[in-house]
């Protein structure tokens, strides 16, 4: 037992002392913080003041726009043709041309010509303004009072709420799925990054021929577990540093450059908006209006459960996969030979990652169920489900998934240990699957 601690210590210290670790520990948060600040900055820069040249084919129907000018969006009228206006665009301080066609009341579209695309917010403002005027025209035409109109107009939304047997209610929403997705992504990345490190470590010991010296002092299984645990601690350390540094950097930059009152509680919101913004890029359909209030989102997630499960699946998934990575490392002589064994390991991980988006759409469907039960995909998928809320009647699924994960990683570690034990002493031999099978019974 004492010796495994020595091994853990060595695996940990040699990695933590590496320049690459230190660089990554510093660069990581800078990158994350930079990205976050970039998003904030872009959000601010986006709303660059716009001076629009309105070409109104229905003048003066839309002349009211001019009165609604703000600093952000300024509407300016000139009685010229669209073609002339286009020529003017690059020779004036106009940032865009808004062309209101004569058929706007039927077609319900107008055109905006620009060089630099105005932000979503600007878009929204222009749309609202025109919408307002069109509404007024219609109200007049159909002889409806504005009051009646607002009484009739409906902005409908469906709220999805899980009603638990205990009487508790919990809102189910896709946004919460994003939180789970983010956590799942972290687990996915961690397993990959550090699983490969385990494999590399094993290969290094094998190719440098130190391994036989070591296992004349300790059992191969101790060496393998020491490595796996040591590297897990390196990963946890890296995460801890990242979190602390990221919070620190964002805090400092916020207080220096942005006149914003920033407290750490908001940080999670920031991360959320970053995540959301990323999501938005892929799903253009979500407009600014639809971004939910992050504060609200934070409060709607069962954080103790979420963080507890994150830690559990994070470690469980890592232990399961790193045992397999260790076995692969033992089976080969150099990294280029790992290819054939990597596919069966990386496939389930990639499937889990890609399916997590699908699971977000349908968190109670059969795919979500099976993928969150199967230990090879559950660490990523279950994060999404937990974030979206697990119903009381489905608690058994969570328990089953956890038990299966623990059982599988114990079994896998045992299996990997057998392959490892034989593999590390096989030099200059490229193992096949057949051979691995034989090694199990050595």
């Amino acid at each position, binding site marked *: 037992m004492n010796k495994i601690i*020595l091994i853990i210590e*060595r695996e940990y210290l040699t990695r933590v002392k590496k320049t690459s670790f230190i660089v990554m520990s510093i660069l990581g948060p800078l990158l994350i913080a930079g990205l976050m600040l970039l998003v904030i900055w872009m959000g601010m820069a986006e709303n660059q003041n716009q001076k629009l040249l309105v070409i109104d084919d229905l003048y003066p129907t839309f002349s009211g726009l001019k009165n609604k000018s703000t600093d952000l969006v300024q509407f300016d009228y000139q009685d010229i043709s669209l073609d002339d206006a286009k020529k003017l665009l690059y020779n004036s301080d106009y940032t865009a041309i808004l062309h209101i066609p004569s058929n706007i009341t039927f077609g319900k579209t107008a055109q905006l010509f620009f060089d630099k695309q105005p932000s979503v917010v600007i878009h929204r403002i222009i749309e609202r303004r025109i919408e307002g005027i069109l509404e007024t025209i219609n109200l007049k035409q159909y002889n409806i009072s504005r009051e009646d109109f607002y009484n009739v107009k409906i902005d409908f939304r469906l709220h999805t709420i899980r009603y638990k047997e205990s009487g508790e209610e919990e809102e189910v929403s896709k946004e919460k799925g994003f939180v789970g997705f983010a956590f799942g992504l972290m687990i996915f990345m961690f397993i990959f990054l550090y699983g490969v490190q385990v494999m590399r470590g094993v290969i290094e010991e094998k190719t440098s021929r130190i391994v036989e*010296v070591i296992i*004349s002092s300790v059992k191969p299984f101790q060496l393998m577990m020491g490595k796996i645990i040591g590297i897990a601690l390196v990963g946890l350390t890296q995460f801890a540093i990242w979190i602390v540094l990221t919070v620190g950097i964002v805090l400092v930059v916020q207080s220096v450059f942005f006149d914003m009152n920033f407290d750490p509680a908001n940080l999670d919101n920031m991360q959320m908006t970053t995540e959301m913004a990323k999501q938005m890029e892929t799903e253009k359909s979500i407009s600014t209006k639809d971004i939910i209030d992050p504060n609200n989102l934070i409060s709607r997630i069962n954080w103790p459960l979420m963080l507890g499960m994150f830690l559990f699946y994070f470690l469980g998934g890592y232990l399961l996969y790193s045992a397999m990575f260790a076995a692969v490392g033992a089976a080969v002589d150099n990294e280029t030979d790992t290819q054939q064994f990597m596919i069966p390991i990386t496939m389930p991980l990639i499937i889990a990652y890609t399916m997590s988006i699908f699971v977000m759409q349908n968190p109670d469907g059969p795919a979500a169920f099976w993928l969150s039960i199967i230990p090879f995909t559950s660490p990523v998928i279950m994060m999404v489900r937990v974030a979206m809320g697990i119903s009381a009647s489905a608690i058994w699924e969570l328990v089953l998934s956890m038990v299966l994960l623990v059982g599988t990683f114990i079994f896998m570690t045992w299996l990997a240990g057998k392959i490892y034990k034989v593999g590390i002493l096989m030099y200059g031999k490229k193992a096949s699957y057949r051979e691995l099978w034989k090694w199990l019974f050595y």
Partner: protein
Amino acid sequence: MPEVLLRTENITKQYSNHLALDGVSIAVQEQRIFGLLGPNGAGKTSLIRIINQITAPDSGNILFEGRVLKPDDVEKIGYLPEERGLYKKMKVGEQTLYLARLKGLSRSVALERLKYWFEKFEIQSWWNKKVEELSKGMQQKIQFITTVLHEPKLLIFDEPFTGFDPINTELIKKEILELKEKGTTIIFSTHNMESVEELCDDIALINNSKLILEGSMQDINKSFRTNTYELVFNGSLDAFKQHLNENELIDATESNGSIRARVKLGDKDGSLNKLLTGVLPVVEIRACNEVIPRMREIFIRAVGESSGKDKIDE
């Protein structure tokens, strides 16, 4: 009668497609150098790995200090494998300390002993160097130190001299003999027959997974006597030949006016005296001594005989 430190009893080890060891029993006596010999693939490394508890035998026992070998005994054994290396990116000092602690030494004891050895080999300046900065010969010195640092009762060297330059080879030989003087028992596996003659007290020869020869160097030399003598004389070779009687001339060379002849005594009541009586009247004998079989010849003969026997068995 010296005590037996390590005894293997009927060790058998089967790998999926071949039998690596077939009922091998050896006894290694305390404070002696035991040569474990055999052609490539004979099973030497398999046996050594079993003694080091790296792999387990399918059947058979290993007794250490008169009782069954137990896991803790790894701390009393030092092993320098044939396939050996060090962590390349780790510093020499850190690494030797780590390996010593894995063998059960406390940090302070390990540091103290490392200081002794580093001073002895005059390599103190390497302490903070990374292993990859050292030459191969330097790395071998480090490996030797880590093998002996925990002062094991039993040292196992598997091909210790491969890749060593002659100076390092001499240095390590000297250290091995010194360790033996201090009471360490050494198992020494090698192909290098000269170093066997130089160092070993006892040998065991393994061929095709089986033990085919075991005993002290003296006894083995005796049993492999070929009854051959080398005579140096002045005079006529023809006359010498005519007076050989039933003895057989193997070869003769001439140098500096003297003839050097190797003669195998006749099978029936051949003796050196008879041979000398026969040739004394015709030549002038300058020197005469028995041709002691070289380890290399013993090795080749024993392996050849056992391989031949195997074929007949089949």
